[in-house]
């Protein structure tokens, strides 16, 4: 591995994040007249929280899914820690990358603990190690292990289910976490608390996070760097401040809104201890 940013957090959780490079990535779906993603070049540094922001249908989810090979690019390559994903077995690759989706997708026939344990089990961890890891993760996402371990997904609220989804994605200490509109289906209050949680988890673990959303406030609140997409192109990439100060074009200006000062309030909202 050629990671530039291997940092171990004080509590031994995780070993930082992987560097993800997209080189000329284009995706054209069969029978589609226009490409879903056009020649995207993007380097995501290890440990960076990157948000892909854009309207629905802009190609942000497709781009995200090229990273764990759920979508194969028509051209271009994705490189994680210096190794092209195409050189790796897709199943083995995905076990090392966390994946969280809007619909959560918890397995209904498994308990919370079994859901969280899915990837460690696939990787053949022994039972004691899995049990310890499950408790550790439930504590990380602030669900009391004794209360939640044996619940079934149907006994969880939407917000709790998504926390478990995050725990499941983090179980095998991935160095990259992909999140596809993870908080879009919950109400505003729960969404805000989930955003706080993921920001805190990111601060603790320094996992590389690639996060897809169409919600500008969410992007401004969470991102180290925002990548604005439209019609399959990257329109602008920069820090939330840069996006607000210097929108690259009319599209970005419209997206962030007419009043950057109001938007800026979002940045000033304390994220636990931002």
């Amino acid at each position, binding site marked *: 591995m050629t990671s530039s940013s291997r940092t171990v957090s004080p509590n031994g959780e995780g070993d930082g994040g992987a560097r993800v490079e997209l080189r000329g990535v284009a995706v054209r779906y069969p029978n589609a007249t226009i490409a879903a993603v056009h020649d995207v070049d993007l380097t995501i540094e290890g440990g960076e929280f990157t948000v892909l922001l854009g309207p629905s249908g802009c190609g942000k989810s497709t781009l995200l899914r090229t990273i764990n090979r759920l979508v194969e690019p028509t051209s271009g390559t994705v490189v994680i820690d210096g190794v092209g994903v195409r050189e790796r077995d897709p199943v083995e*690759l*995905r076990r090392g990358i966390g*994946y969280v989706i809007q619909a*959560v*997708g*918890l397995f209904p*026939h498994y308990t919370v603990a079994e859901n969280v344990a899915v990837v460690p089990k*696939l990787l053949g961890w022994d039972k004691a190690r899995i049990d310890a890891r499950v408790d550790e993760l439930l504590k990380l996402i602030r669900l009391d292990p004794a209360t939640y371990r044996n619940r*079934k997904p149907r006994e969880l609220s939407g917000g709790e289910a998504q926390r478990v989804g995050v725990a499941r*994605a983090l179980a095998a200490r991935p160095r990259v976490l992909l999140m596809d509109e993870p908080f879009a289906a919950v109400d505003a209050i729960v969404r805000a608390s989930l955003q706080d949680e993921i920001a805190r988890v990111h601060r603790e673990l320094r996992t590389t996070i690639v996060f897809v959303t169409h919600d500008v406030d969410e992007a401004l609140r969470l991102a180290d760097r925002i990548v604005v997409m439209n019609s399959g192109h990257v329109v602008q990439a920069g820090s939330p401040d840069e996006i607000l100060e210097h929108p690259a074009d009319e599209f970005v200006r419209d997206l962030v809104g007419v009043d950057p000062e109001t938007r800026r309030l979002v940045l000033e909202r304390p994220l636990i201890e931002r």
Partner: protein
Amino acid sequence: MTYLATHPGRVAALLGEHVVLVAVSLAIALAIALPLGVLAARNPRAGSVILGLAGVLYTVPSLALLAILVAVLGLGKVTAIVALVVYAQMILIRAIVAALRGIDPALIDSARGLGFTARQTLLRVEFPAGLPVMLGGVRVAAVSLVALATVAAWINAGGLGVLLFEGISTNNPQKIFAGALAAAVLAIAADVALRGAERTVRT
């Protein structure tokens, strides 16, 4: 009631034969329907061929099917089991296809995204999630086969149909009643048991 009261041993023995006939047929039918159902659910082209063929076989009248099979396989249990297996296909394949196609796509997306192989996704996610619907199909098939298996007596395959045919040819309504009652009780028992199983696997 008199026949049942005077010959409980014989009725019980025929009931046992009937259960074996249905259980063996159902087991074989499931072993065939599972791979076909998975294929049909995965591949729409194969699906329309498989469901079309099973549908055609299902519409052949049972007596006609038995007559054709007797010409090929002769009289006896094997022929009856083949006929029951053929009839169950339509019901089972359709239930398996409905179960697999009805699974929340998010489950499959997250399973793949977390690094399940296609096989692990099928066995650990799709089958368990689709189990209630599949068991519904098994229940309908079991009840249908209990009814259909009575006709098997006509080709010397035994079972409760023996009482019905004997009763008809010797004009003995008590025998017919005993056979019909036992078959009905068996069908209801199968229905209740499998409904219970459906409830326990439903999450």
